[in-house]
């Protein structure tokens, strides 16, 4: 049974379709692992045990009937707890929405169920997706599985999604990404995560943080599994007017393993040069690996990168406050402290400042488009730091002390503003055993190329196959990691010091 929880989505679907494994066995194996590990990891807010087993029994009956099977038939998937589900509460990790029961599924949840997916449960997150660490005062902060001894952040806001996939509690999950919230936990938890192009996947039935920046997407242990999940999710939805009618590619079919001649732009200024030493070395090695596979690499830069922080702040602060305004007036005490403070700060952003952020966004998008005329993909670190301790407010990169929140979103928010697709894949580990992530950025609606490059890289490397030291038999467990990664030594926590305004979730 333990073996089943480490199978890929593709392999599980194949085993189910060929009657080698029952969907009931698959779901039961994952539920048993959740029972064993989640009291510590806190990846789940709601485990949908009964409905998942019921769906698994129905899936088993369909296999036995000999009917044609959809591509994800019998495969368990978990959802960040801001996707509406008709059969379980959707809390957004909040006290305010505790027990809230939506009338219908989000569009992508309906599509994944129609594709045969079985919903295993709802995953932990930074409250209302408003923070990049994955902190949650109401349901407990998810525990990064790569450090079994000390409580490190999983990254957010899709913290539970990162932890659940990394720890083998589910083979795939959905996250959402407004400033990096799929890619940051993917990076810190050593998994793959795809933020599709804005408009590629419907947001209907997904609780918002900032409508114009929110993206929903898959998280899994490989880019190939992200492709499998993206397929049924992608495409126009009349319920979400921002979805595009651009044709949906065959994502799994695009994974040829071939990237000979692909033009790769390495984003060094602002991005690579601001990462910790070990992270820079990991990215540079990954670029050499891509060259060995036939890619042609040159340096690239985005001159507006330094303005992304301000533009992102203006947009998120304003849109988030607009969504939360009534609750902030009537139930301010029901928010966790950091989220309440960020929401309040939005009251002092003017309409003109909001639109200045949106106008800056046009420049940022146009520049990424122009840069991608010279390159097929761009490469950057996902984060400049690895997972820090829960409660740690500052971190030192080389000789500079920066606040953790700002650091986490430094490299990711640019592509929420531009809307381009990005996949984060693991590309190394620190000597303390903490994962490092790399972003692969593509042209608008060209998720196929992004996934092809990510998949080719993963065929040539094994970073994505490593397992964290939780749930392993004691004798097989690797040596416990040191308290902090040497490349990014941690400064003492100073939680009372307000950070540079960073709201990206």
């Amino acid at each position, binding site marked *: 049974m333990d073996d089943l929880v480490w199978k890929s989505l593709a392999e599980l679907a194949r085993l189910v379709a060929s009657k080698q494994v029952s969907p009931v066995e698959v779901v039961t194996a994952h539920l048993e692992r959740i029972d064993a590990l989640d009291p510590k990891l806190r990846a789940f807010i709601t485990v949908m045990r009964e409905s998942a087993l019921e769906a698994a029994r129905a899936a088993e009956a369909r296999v036995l009937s000999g009917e044609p099977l959809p591509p994800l038939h019998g495969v368990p998937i978990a959802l960040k707890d801001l996707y509406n589900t008709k059969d379980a509460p959707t809390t957004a990790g909040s006290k305010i929405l505790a027990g809230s029961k939506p009338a219908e599924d989000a569009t992508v949840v309906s599509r994944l169920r129609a594709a045969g997916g079985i919903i295993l449960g709802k995953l932990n997150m930074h409250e209302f997706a408003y923070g990049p660490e994955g902190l949650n005062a109401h349901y407990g902060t998810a525990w990064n599985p790569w450090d079994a001894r000390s409580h490190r952040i999983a990254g957010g806001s899709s913290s539970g999604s990162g932890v659940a996939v990394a720890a083998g509690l589910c083979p795939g999950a959905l996250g959402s990404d407004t400033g990096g919230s799929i890619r940051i936990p993917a990076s810190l938890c050593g998994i793959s995560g795809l933020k599709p192009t804005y408009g590629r996947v419907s947001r209907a039935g997904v609780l918002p943080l900032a409508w*114009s920046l929110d993206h929903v997407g898959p998280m899994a242990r490989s880019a190939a599994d992200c492709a499998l999940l993206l397929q049924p999710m992608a495409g126009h939805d009349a319920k979400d*007017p*921002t979805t595009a009618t651009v044709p949906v590619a065959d994502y799994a079919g695009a994974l040829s393993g071939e990237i000979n001649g692909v033009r790769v732009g390495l984003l060094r200024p602002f991005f690579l040069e601001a990462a910790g030493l070990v992270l820079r070395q990991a990215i540079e090695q990954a670029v050499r690996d891509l060259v060995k596979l036939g890619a042609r690499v040159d340096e690239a830069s985005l001159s*507006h990168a*330094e*303005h992304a*922080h*301000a*533009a992102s*702040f*203006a947009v998120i*602060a304003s849109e988030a406050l607009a969504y939360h*305004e009534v609750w*902030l*007036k009537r139930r301010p005490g029901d928010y966790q402290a950091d989220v309440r*403070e960020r929401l*309040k*700060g939005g*009251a*002092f*952003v003017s309409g003109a*400042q909001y*639109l*200045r*952020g*949106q*106008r*800056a*966004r*046009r*420049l*940022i*998008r146009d520049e990424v488009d122009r840069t991608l005329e010279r390159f097929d993909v761009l490469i950057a670190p996902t984060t400049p730091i690895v997972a820090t301790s829960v409660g740690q407010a500052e971190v030192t990169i080389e000789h500079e002390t920066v606040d953790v929140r700002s650091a986490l979103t430094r490299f990711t928010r640019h592509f929420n*503003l531009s809307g381009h697709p990005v996949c984060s894949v693991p590309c190394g580990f620190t000597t303390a055993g903490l994962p490092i992530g790399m972003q692969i950025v593509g042209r608008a609606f060209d998720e196929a190329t992004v996934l092809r490059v990510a998949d080719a890289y993963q065929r040539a490397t094994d970073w994505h196959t490593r397992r964290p030291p939780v749930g392993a038999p004691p004798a097989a467990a690797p040596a416990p990691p040191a308290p902090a990664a040497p490349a990014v030594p941690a400064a003492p926590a100073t939680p009372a010091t*307000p950070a*540079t*305004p960073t709201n990206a979730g």
Partner: protein
Amino acid sequence: MLPGMAELNPGLMRRIAALAGYDWTEEELRALVPVVERSLALLERLESLPLRDVEPGILFPMA
């Protein structure tokens, strides 16, 4: 701070918050002063961008 802008203090912030319908205590407003100061400094950076002829990067699809 932009030219002509009043210095930020809890009293001024109380008036701004009240206009938006928030009734925050003196203590809450004092805690917000450094947060808002940093926010305004951050937003000021956008002033240096050549935005004169740039429309917002948001769409309003009619169909």
